[in-house]
């Protein structure tokens, strides 16, 4: 007997993978890692995704960006035809859930409230900040831990990153030699990704360390230049910790009463290169 082909079942794992690249732009971290994903499941070709945020007052514009990114990513999963997004417990929960699920833009849902062309400028501003943070982390690593000189760092080309996927370390070409820098690969991957997101040139001959607009940095200017990235890193990592803590408290994710309040509970988490 021949059965009619059942619709392909969309696995939760596939949905989760699709959502992993969705970032909170203010924190430059995946909403899956942050615990903002409250649940996702498919019913036939319709996917239901529930999001939650650290506070009732979390910004509607950032929430919208995340919810809309989640929808777009899920729509790209084979078999998905519809995405229903539900944002819980936010001052604007209803408007955001309804608007994003219907594929509307932020300014359609909140007329007169967004400035400029929807949320594009906001996204770009935070992509710049994320770039600054990730670049500072990588450059600090190259200077302080790998012992490179400032002149070496600013002269690096994209093609000098020989391998950033190796678990043993970052393989980097320095002049005519090749070095394996332990602990550097994750930082290099993050930096390359954020750089790509800004649309900076990725040909092998392109300079690896430029400012956010692609301009070269002089070795003498590097310490002053890095101050900006350091401020961005400290601010973003601090916000990340604040948001994680509030989410834990809000949804009781910190286990037994009082456990979340222990001293120094959030030491170095999320801050790989200091």
């Amino acid at each position, binding site marked *: 007997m021949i059965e009619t082909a059942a619709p392909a079942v969309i696995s939760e794992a596939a949905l989760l993978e699709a959502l992993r690249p969705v970032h909170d732009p203010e924190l430059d971290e995946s909403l899956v890692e942050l615990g903002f994903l409250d649940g996702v499941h498919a019913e036939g070709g319709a996917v239901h995704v529930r999001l939650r945020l650290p506070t009732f*007052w979390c910004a509607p514009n950032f929430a919208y960006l995340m919810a809309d990114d989640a929808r777009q990513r899920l729509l790209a999963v084979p078999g998905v035809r519809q995405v229903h997004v539900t944002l819980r417990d936010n*001052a604007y929960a209803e408007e955001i859930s309804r608007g994003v699920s219907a594929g509307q833009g932020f300014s359609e849902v909140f007329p007169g409230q967004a400035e400029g062309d929807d949320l594009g400028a906001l996204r770009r501003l935070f992509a710049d900040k994320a770039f600054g943070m990730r670049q500072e982390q990588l450059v600090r690593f190259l200077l302080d831990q790998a012992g490179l000189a400032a002149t070496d760092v600013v002269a690096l080309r994209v093609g000098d990153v020989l391998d950033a996927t190796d678990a043993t370390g970052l393989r980097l070409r320095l002049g005519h030699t090749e070095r394996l820098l332990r602990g550097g690969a994750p930082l290099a991957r993050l930096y390359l990704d954020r750089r790509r997101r800004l649309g900076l040139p990725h040909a092998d001959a392109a300079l690896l360390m430029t400012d956010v607009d692609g301009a070269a940095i002089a070795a003498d200017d590097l310490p002053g230049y890095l101050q900006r990235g350091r401020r961005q890193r400290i601010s973003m990592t601090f916000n990340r910790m604040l948001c994680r803590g509030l989410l834990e408290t809000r949804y009781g994710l910190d286990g037994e009463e009082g456990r979340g309040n222990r001293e120094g509970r959030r030491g*170095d988490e999320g801050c790989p290169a200091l």
Partner: protein
Amino acid sequence: MYRTADGQDILVVDSHIHFWDGSPGNQKNRYAEGWVECFYNYHKNLSPPEYVWPLEQYQRYSEQQIMKDLFEDGYVDVAIFQPTYLRDFFTNGWNTIEQDAVLKEKYPDKFILNGAWDPRDGDAGLTQLEEDAKRYNLKGVKLYTAEWKGDSRGYKLGAPETLRYLDKCVELGITNIHIHKGPTIWPFNRDAFDVADVDEVATLYRDAGLRFIVEHCGIPRIEDFCWIAAQEPNVYGGLAVVMPFIHASPHYFAEVMAELVWWLGPDRLLFSSDYALWSPKWIVDKFMAWDFPEDVKATRGLSLSLEDKKKIMGLNAAKLYDLPVPSEAGFQVAVPA
């Protein structure tokens, strides 16, 4: 007054406190409920467990409680009320000048009473400001640029209607402009959140003598705040919300303090508990015992001496508000009895 192990007295001015009414009877709508829930989670998340209150107590606390927590247990000599109205959420307001005035009138030496205004109140608000200034002898105001008012979701400091109010402050001798830049309400659009408007008015009113104290140091935009504050000598950082991290995350606290001290120096930072969000007792104890970790000292070349801590704990605020500094809490070392 806080006394160090070797007998030095430290003046403690808590530059940001509240006497709010978040009780269910005062809550107008779900936004009020969301406001209280959010505040309570900040309190619960960042306080040591023994300082966490039940929600009911947190919604509305008594006069005895505030007097004990600040002045008996918390080392505070003078505390500054920073009113926040939120009349769209709370029937009688969240923390109004009238509410705070009850305690100010009863304990005139313990409290400084600041006012509050909102440029969206137009001419009527200006008249009210004049009356408040006269009645309460105001030296400072607290502004909440993200406050909801009718359909409006906030205002900007550089807007012409705001400048009228700042002009009025100059005229009335209200020189300390505390601006809430930080949690809880995330403003609607990017610009209402930005600290750039502080930059604009700080430049504009520098010669007129206005000082702009950015509450919460612009969290979550500390990076932009530091940049602005470094350039504007009349911009200060209010450490409310930053300080409690000394318990939960000493490492991040050290990093943020390093940035603040690096860009602003110890002369433009003000201790605040944001009571009743947090109780000053444990923050003061921990901060007085705190120092930059060795790696920060080495890589950033930073240090924080006892003299610097004295400034942050009280002397900076004393300067802004012309408070008398008892000679034993000044810069000279006290002789133990």
